[in-house]
């Protein structure tokens, strides 16, 4: 009994497979779609034609750059997380802006000229190789150097506040040259927009 049943199952399965194979070889012919169903609106007695609605006319809305902009639509916190103003990095015990830093600063200046309402705090930071105390002043020197560059680019000094965190807030907690290079920096934090 068991053997007979399993043979029957096998035959049924084979028949099914053949059917599937055939259907693949002969795809159904595409037919035109049925006409759209008659809607209830058209079925009801026609009403007087509505006057053209001007709101539906395509109107040109003047672009609001501050709203359209991905940058300006963000909250301050989100904005600062993406750091639209790029940090600049300094050599050991130096507050001079290298040519590469100057390019970064020019880009930052362009952004600050575009978003004239932004107020920015420029943070000066140091790596851990100096002392905690002297680094407070060294970080300040870096922040001031970055601000002086922006002011020279025509930005109002009133929008640019400086603060030094010395070596209190390392960007990279490591203790090697790569980490130190990341920690000797000026960071730009947008505080109002």
């Amino acid at each position, binding site marked *: 009994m068991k053997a007979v049943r399993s043979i029957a199952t096998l035959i049924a399965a084979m028949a099914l497979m053949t059917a599937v194979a055939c259907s693949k070889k002969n795809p159904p012919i595409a037919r035109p779609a049925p006409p759209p169903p008659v809607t209830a609106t058209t079925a009801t007695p026609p009403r007087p034609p509505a006057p053209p609605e001007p709101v539906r006319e395509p109107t040109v809305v003047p672009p609001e750059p501050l709203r359209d902009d991905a940058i300006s639509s963000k909250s301050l916190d989100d904005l600062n997380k993406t*750091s639209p103003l790029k940090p600049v990095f300094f050599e050991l015990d130096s507050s001079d802006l290298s040519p590469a830093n100057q390019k970064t600063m020019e880009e930052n200046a362009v952004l600050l000229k575009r978003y004239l309402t932004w107020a920015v705090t420029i943070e000066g930071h140091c790596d851990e190789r*100096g*002392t905690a*105390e*002297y680094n*407070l*002043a060294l970080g300040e020197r870096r922040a*001031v150097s970055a601000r002086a560059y922006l002011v020279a680019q025509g930005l109002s000094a009133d929008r640019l506040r400086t*603060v030094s965190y010395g070596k*209190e807030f390392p960007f990279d907690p490591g203790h090697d040259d790569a980490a130190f290079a990341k920690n000797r920096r000026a960071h730009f934090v947008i505080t109002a927009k």
Partner: protein
Amino acid sequence: MTKSFMPGVIAIALLAAWPHAQQPTPPQTPQQPSELSTTITGEGGIAPRLAIPEFIALSTDAETVATAKTIGQVLWDDLNFEREFAFIPRDVYSSVPKATSFADVPFDRWRELNADGLIVGTVQKVSVGFKVELRLFNVRTRQSAFARGYDGANARLFAHTMSDELHKSQRALNGVARSKLTFDSDRDGERMSGTVQERSIKEIYICDYDGENQKRVTVGKTLNIAPRWSPDGRSIAYTSYRRGGANLFISNIFQGTLDEVTKGDKVGENWLPAWSPDGTKLAFSSTRDGNPEIYVVNRDGSGLRRITNHPNIDITPTWSPSGTQIAFTSDRSGSPQIYVVGADGLNLSKKTSEVYADRPTWSPAPFNEIAFAAKSGPGFDIRVLDLSTGATKAITFGEGTNESPAFSPNGRHIVFTSTRSGKAQVFTVSRDGKNVRQITRAGNNEKPDWSK
């Protein structure tokens, strides 16, 4: 009161948690007239050898027994810290029968162990706290060289007070057992919000000189750093970023009040306040006139005076013990070095020619020294400059990086930050570079100061 039964013995209330700051100076104990000598001396000029057997609990309840045990141990540690005495090792004490009162002290046995002095104490439970009696016996004469009674509840404070009084009476030394430390720490792992990256805040902490009783004293939710004890031990001045930029604040830690010393939009950044020895003024560094200069201001923010005038960095001031001079760090020579200037801004002189030197801290009298951190390789080491001879000696020797020294009130120890055990931690060391002790262990702990 049993007080009157003990001539020459007075009771000192130790119930207050902060005796160093609040307790009025106790009346001087008249020395017992029957004694020929009230000082224990060692033989042949060496340090006297002391034994401190466990204090005698006069009752068997657990609290009294535990208090007696703690007092003996902490007193041993406190006396050992100044290294004015030698100690009979504790592991031989078990061979000596335990006394049950001052009347049955086995002097012969302690003499066999070469003890010069023997500290015996009793602890008695009273309605509030304990009554503790202390005797220092001359083992040879069996006479009491020092005897005093104490009332209180805090076992460690009993011991610290005894230690300071024993050092004073026996060695004419101002001990530091009741002094305190302060430092900044990120140990609580709290974060600042609204910043470019995740940042740990730092708050101000205090603790006993031996690292016990660590307590947080600020709730700034921001960066509060570089605390300094006021001379009266009741206030701590520090640099706080709670207004955005760096400003000077004073926490009056027993009142729970906060004073803002530098205020307003036009004051620039203000860092690293240092109390004048009389506690009326703070020296600090400020960028209010364009670049970091040293200023002096009254503690209420009035009477601002500018001390330095140079386009380079001037920062990290410290006062001379007389209050007539200020030492600070300047990079006007091209690298950070220590300078001294009169508190009137006159008579500037350069004091160091290191690769890099910072955080000068002037010693208390009678020493005339400035401790500082000097670059000594990849990191820093603590060095001490003797102002009378011009000689510099090293206190630390390249274990980790070592920064931010401050002297103990008696000038015999230095507290500093070191990375020798991993993260930045607070350590104390004796002025000869020995006896290094780690004070903190959790988080990063930095920029310590020692109460005056």
